């Protein structure tokens, strides 16, 4: 509630600095499009130089021009309140929120570690460099960082992953966000964490920005159920509340343009457990 109330009032108060910032933001967007046109025109006059120019052109388009255009447009028309979807740093709709957790941060970290999940490093210059060297030398990087996704207007608090047979292109991974104080899921369920778990199946190009990225498996429910099962196996006391049809089942695309299909169920893992007591499974269904 506090979150939804704060957002509109902050937007109505417009300071001259913010207007100036928006002006430069949009001007830079247009200027980058012009730059792309200039580079394309220039490349027509090049013979063999065309090859490296094409790479330069792609880098400009994928990492500067398209993200900026997406940011300008998504700020206008993508909703900023909770709709069960995360957003990419360009504002596009990202992976679906398909898991929730009740419990403290310590309980969550302990349960994930027990279930064989490795915490991902934050994205820094050092960890980015390690990804490059690990890929080139074909070494595994267990704690490889995951890309930032946004919920509640901020990047994930942390992410966990599981490697697949020493293949850096494939991995299980799940991102967690702490919910704002007093915040409730649609339907009035109170949880402490929400999470988005997907399976990276390959490395490829994003459909919307042309950036190099992981492509996710479209059956996100399989990954969700894998996360739940792994935690319940490792910590049998975990109670499971399964909210049936939390969202309507849907087909869609994430921020990289990969298809998603889900039945819309939302499992809530309750880690505030009583030791020695097997956790119950509670199923919540709607009227019908």
């Amino acid at each position, binding site marked *: 509630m506090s979150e939804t109330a704060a957002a509109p009032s902050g937007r109505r108060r417009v300071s001259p600095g913010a207007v100036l910032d928006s002006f430069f*933001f949009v001007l*830079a967007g247009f*200027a980058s499009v012009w*730059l792309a046109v200039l580079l394309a025109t*220039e490349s027509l*006059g090049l013979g063999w130089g065309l090859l490296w120019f094409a790479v330069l052109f792609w880098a400009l388009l994928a990492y500067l021009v398209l993200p*900026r255009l997406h940011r300008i447009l998504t700020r206008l028309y993508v909703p900023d309140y909770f709709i069960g979807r995360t957003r990419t740093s360009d504002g596009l709709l990202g992976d679906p929120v398909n898991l929730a957790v009740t419990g403290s941060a310590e309980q969550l970290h302990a349960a994930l570690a027990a279930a064989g999940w490795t915490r991902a490093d934050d994205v820094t210059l050092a960890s980015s460099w390690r990804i490059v060297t690990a890929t080139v030398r074909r070494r595994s990087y267990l704690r490889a960082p995951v890309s930032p996704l946004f919920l509640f207007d901020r990047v994930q608090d942390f992410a966990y992953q599981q490697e697949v047979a020493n293949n850096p292109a494939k991995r299980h991974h799940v991102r967690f966000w702490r919910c704002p104080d007093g915040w409730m899921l649609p339907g009035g369920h109170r949880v402490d964490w929400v999470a988005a778990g997907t399976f990276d199946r390959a490395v490829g190009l994003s459909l919307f920005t042309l950036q190099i990225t992981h492509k996710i498996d479209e059956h996100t429910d399989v990954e969700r159920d894998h996360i739940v099962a792994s935690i319940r196996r490792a910590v049998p006391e975990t109670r499971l509340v399964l909210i049936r049809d939390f969202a309507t089942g849907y087909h869609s695309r994430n921020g990289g343009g990969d298809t998603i299909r889900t039945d819309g169920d939302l499992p809530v893992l309750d880690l505030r457990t009583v030791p020695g007591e097997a956790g119950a499974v509670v199923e919540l269904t709607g009227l019908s």
Partner: protein
Amino acid sequence: MTRTDARVRVKRPPSVLGGVLLMGVRAVTGGFVILTVIVSWDTFVATIVLNGDRLDRSDPHAAAAVLGWLLGAYGLYLVLYLGLAALVFTGRNWARVVAMSFASVSILFSFADYALNGAQITLRTSLVSVTVDILILLALSSTQARHYARARRAAR
């Protein structure tokens, strides 16, 4: 909140670092222009024209003085520009706005020349400098750079 707290909390984003480096590139290329002029001084003195006559023929000292003044002014501008880059690096919001304004004005002039006069912008003419200006504007207008400058201002 104390200054040290803020310094620990607010990390400088790559976009600010990139923008400042590009501003450095711009200043260094300006320095090369000055060096080029000094190396072939006589050729450039001969290009100074007053009322349709070459000034170095009637008054060689005055022609040299004019060129010296122009170079000095440009050099001062470059030094101030480097100072501006340093202030952007430390997270001054006004410095970021001024740097973005410089880049914008330069881009808009180039664009007007391109759109209205049909100026050719290629590698041999001004493509590199226009590219650097646009990249500076993109980097410093990014959300990360804005948040960084705002957070530093709030901390001060």
